[in-house]
């Protein structure tokens, strides 16, 4: 792995000698963040979910995706922000949301009745309307075969709309679909369910984040970092960081 890093540095230095433009220093865009209220996740993401861009949270069933997003939604509504929940499959449970600290008065719930295209269009409309601090596109129950067919152009469009509106756009899915369009990707895994006596107490989840900075850097140390095996689009990201955190979602 270290040899790979050294090779990348060597290759870049050779390329820089001939084509300096791709390697010019560009200031990294600092984004505001919405803390999730879960210390482990806030530490993992360096402060929370970034605004003005797309974040993907993916995982299979019972991996704590909804718990994480409800915590985020609770924090955002507690700050007085208006939020939108675009629910592709109609799985939103208002009672769970209230128990997670969400102020329902500040949440616009859009039930798309299982139609992913409608969900994408609704997300676009809501972001364009402006004024929403957090927009959640919930495609957690949508089949992979459908979400994989969403063209990258749609994700780019949503990301640019979020950038213009300054809203944090969070997509909840079963797997990463937006690839290089999303700035932050959090992959959730179930570590273990928590059973206490005759009760399902909760679950312990593991979150792995990958950040994609869509900027180029000349920092050799950054280039020396080994790319994680799961990185999907090397061309778009000059610097990837991968971290793991654990948290519990309990009743």
């Amino acid at each position: 792995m270290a040899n790979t890093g050294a090779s990348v540095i060597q290759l870049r230095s050779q390329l820089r000698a001939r084509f300096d433009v791709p390697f010019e220093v560009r200031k990294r865009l600092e984004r505001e963040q919405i803390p999730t209220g879960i210390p482990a996740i806030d530490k993992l993401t360096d402060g929370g979910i970034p605004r003005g861009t797309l974040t993907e949270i993916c995982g299979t069933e019972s991996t704590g995706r909804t718990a994480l997003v409800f915590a985020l939604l609770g924090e955002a509504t507690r700050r007085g922000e208006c939020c939108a929940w675009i629910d592709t499959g109609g799985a939103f449970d208002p009672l769970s949301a209230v128990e997670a600290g969400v102020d329902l008065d500040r949440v616009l719930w859009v039930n798309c009745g299982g139609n992913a295209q409608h969900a994408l269009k609704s997300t676009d409309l809501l972001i364009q309307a402006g004024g929403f601090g957090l927009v959640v596109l919930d495609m957690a129950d949508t089949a992979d075969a459908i979400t994989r067919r969403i063209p990258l152009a749609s994700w780019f469009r949503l990301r640019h709309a979020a950038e213009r509106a300054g809203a944090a756009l969070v997509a909840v899915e079963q797997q990463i679909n937006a690839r290089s369009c999303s700035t932050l990707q959090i992959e959730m895994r179930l570590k273990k369910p928590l059973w206490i006596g005759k009760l399902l107490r909760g679950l312990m989840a593991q979150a792995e984040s990958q950040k994609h900075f869509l900027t180029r850097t000349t920092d050799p140390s950054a280039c020396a970092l080994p790319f994680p095996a799961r990185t999907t689009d090397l061309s778009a990201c000059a610097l990837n960081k991968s971290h793991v955190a654990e948290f519990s979602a309990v009743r």
Partner: protein
Amino acid sequence: MMMFACLHAPGNLPLAVECARGFSPYIEENPPDTVIFDVRGLESLYGPPEMLAREIERRIGVPASLAIASNPDAAMHAAHGIRGVTIIAPGREAEVLAPLPVNLLGAGLLYAAADRMSSETAELLHLWGIRTFGEFAKLPPLGVAARIGDEGINLQRLARGEGCRQLRPLVDPLEFEEELELDDPVESIEPLSFILSRLLHDVCGRLGARSLATNEVRLRLTLEDVRKNEANSPEHVVLLRLPVPMLDAKAFLKMLQLDLSGRAPVAPVLKVHLKAEPVKPRRTQQGLFVPSSPEPEKLELTVARLRHLLGDGQAGTPELRVGTPVLMDTHRPDSFFMRGFAPRQAVAQNRRIAVADMPVVETPCLEMKNARLCLRRFRPPRYAQVIVVNRQPVRVVSPSVNGRVVMAKGPWRTSGGWWREGGDYAWDRDEWDIALESGALYRLFQDAAQGRWFIEGSYD
């Protein structure tokens, strides 16, 4: 200079009011037959008072007495007591009114009850031998005050033509509606949009001129009846209820267009009637540290577009697809209703919380160490076949959820609603929390009435 005209038209009050409206917006109606109106400033239009009086006389078109004076009471008394046209120059009120019979004093004053002459006073004046305004005006004020009191003072002031009260103008009922009957029936939405645009601009313009807005727009389209029964023509009604008062004709037009394109009239349109409910406009002052919220006009339009895209149910039911869920005060599973999205104005708690760049360690939310376990509901609950061994579910078979149960906790019995009419509301079931070998956690329940198993949702 203040100038008031009074029309006394016995039996023709509506005509007198209509005539007065042609000259002034400030009209005081004194039923059954008198109208007083403010005519100051009309010299530049009609010339001296004589010309103005001639114009008023010409316009009313029916026999009426007209008087113009510097105060409303003098004009009213002159119109009541003198036939034809009377113009009283300022300062000559007492002189002109002097020959009028004293029983006319305060006779036409509908509102000023204190200025009306009581029967005791009338009898007393008759005993004193006072027959005219002039005779009453000449009496010493101190003596009148001593014998008749405040009423006598007021009546004597009126007899001298010295009234100085303000008019009590008629207030038009605030109705903002427009109606247009079409020569030819309109069959498509596009030409109808032009008509709606015109009507909306008119209504919004009138609302704006009165510093008002609206929170409800009702469009009523009279449709062509295929049976040619004009008395019972079918109607198509569109009702826009807005959570906040608005005055944006373009937004209203777009909302009406979306509604009409989603729920088109069943027949060509013959008549368009538009009505807006007037309310006070929204006044908000956003704080510097308050998070921004969607502009109500844009939000309403967006919600209308979403409803058009997704289709929608009735407000107040779970079928409404765009809105805010409101939990109901019951233990019945998944009980909520939907209402329109109308967020309260946010209040800045303190600057540190409102500004997003604060250090993470300072956030108050750090008190919450864990997230809450959430349920993702299947709507409706998915039917499943469950194999039960020793009263414990051991395998679940359904089209979407399938596998061996590795852990099951339950049953948790819950029931209720049996006291209400209708079997739909009652529930009686045993709930289980299960883990499948895939690791997924589900809530399973067996309906006691049917004995069937359902998967209510997954824990996530």
